[in-house]
């Protein structure tokens, strides 16, 4: 999962301090693997250098980091491009796709569209594997079938998520 894009997407919902960002990330996406502070600060300095975020203000206080970050127009464009781009189909994509769906809902983008784009990308690979399977020997068939069943599982998750988008939107927007 792209931590940079995820933090950027969270910032699109409003400016935040580094600490708030970490907390928002952990709450929504970090379930088993919370971010380290170091990851947040190194990511933010990279986003800052690339002009995707800016420092809106620095507040005096305890600790080393009291910068308040805001997303720039270039940052918003970057988030949109990431959400709109299909992920390379591979098993266990759910956490990335889940993150994208939640961020799309949080930032008022079309989450159904994102799922459609991903479905299309999955089916493209599944067609390729099906063609290989049709012309291959039994070993090829079994190898392709294994990949096809995994991709199908992703797609079933996509369909289920698409059917629950309204409910998810209500929950993530609180």
């Amino acid at each position, binding site marked *: 999962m792209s931590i940079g894009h995820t933090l950027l997407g969270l910032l699109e919902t409003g400016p935040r301090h580094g600490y708030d960002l970490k907390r928002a990330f952990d709450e929504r996406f970090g379930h088993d693997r919370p971010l380290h502070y170091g990851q947040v600060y190194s990511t933010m300095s990279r986003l800052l250098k690339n002009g995707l975020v800016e420092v809106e203000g620095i507040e005096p206080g305890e600790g080393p980091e009291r910068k308040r970050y805001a997303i720039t127009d270039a940052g918003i464009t970057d988030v949109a491009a990431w959400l709109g781009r299909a992920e390379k189909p591979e098993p266990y994509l759910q956490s990335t796709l889940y993150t994208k769906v939640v961020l799309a809902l949080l930032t008022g983008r079309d989450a159904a569209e994102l799922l*459609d784009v991903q*479905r*299309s990308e999955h*089916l493209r690979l599944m*067609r390729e594997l099906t063609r290989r399977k049709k012309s291959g020997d039994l070993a090829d068939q079994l190898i392709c079938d294994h990949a096809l*069943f995994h991709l*199908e599982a992703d797609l079933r998750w996509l369909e289920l998520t698409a*059917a629950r988008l309204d409910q998810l939107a209500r929950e993530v927007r609180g």
Partner: protein
Amino acid sequence: MTTAEPLLHAADLRKSYGPTPALDGASFAVHPGEVVAVMGPSGSGKSTLLHCLAGIVRPDSGTVHYRGRELSAMPDTERSALRRSEFGFVFQFGQLVPELTCVENVALPLRLTGVARKEAEARAVEWLERLEVEDVGRHRPGQVSGGQGQRVAVARALVTTPRVVFADEPTGALDSLNGERVMRLLTDAAHDTRAAVVLVTHEARVAAYSDREIVVRDGRVRDLAGTI
């Protein structure tokens, strides 16, 4: 993607059953030799779209053109003749006639268009061979397995060498292995005869036998390839 005239083209179809719209401005096009999967959740309007495309159901508004002619403008007799000779159908449960043998079932569409019994049955046997079920030709549908019955149903759909095959969840009642076999044989045969296939399915592994997919949601068509 081909840019030639589509074989079958639907524009802005609307159809309601009572207060609920089953189709709400759906458009669709399929070209000769193309296999298109129609996907979407249950109740999204997939089957209604297929029925409108095949001239089984008349839309409340919108048009369906087949080879340049509008289906709803045709007299019923002509539309029925079209369905017998130019369209083929495969359903989830083969819907074979239980009293007839498998050969007779496959020969039936030819017999209905006036082909003599002997010739119709000879062609039926060829199609049963092609679908790898020649050994059940003399059996009645009740005596064959689900996978065999479905392959007989595919043979029946293709025996008239239709230009369009409509398949509504053709593997829905089969296990994976039999489902794959039906799809391989159906799509190979359709490619060989340049028939277009409109394949309604909710299974991704079945849709993977198509050339492209459309998604029906809330009675509207989502076509990422932008072919409409």
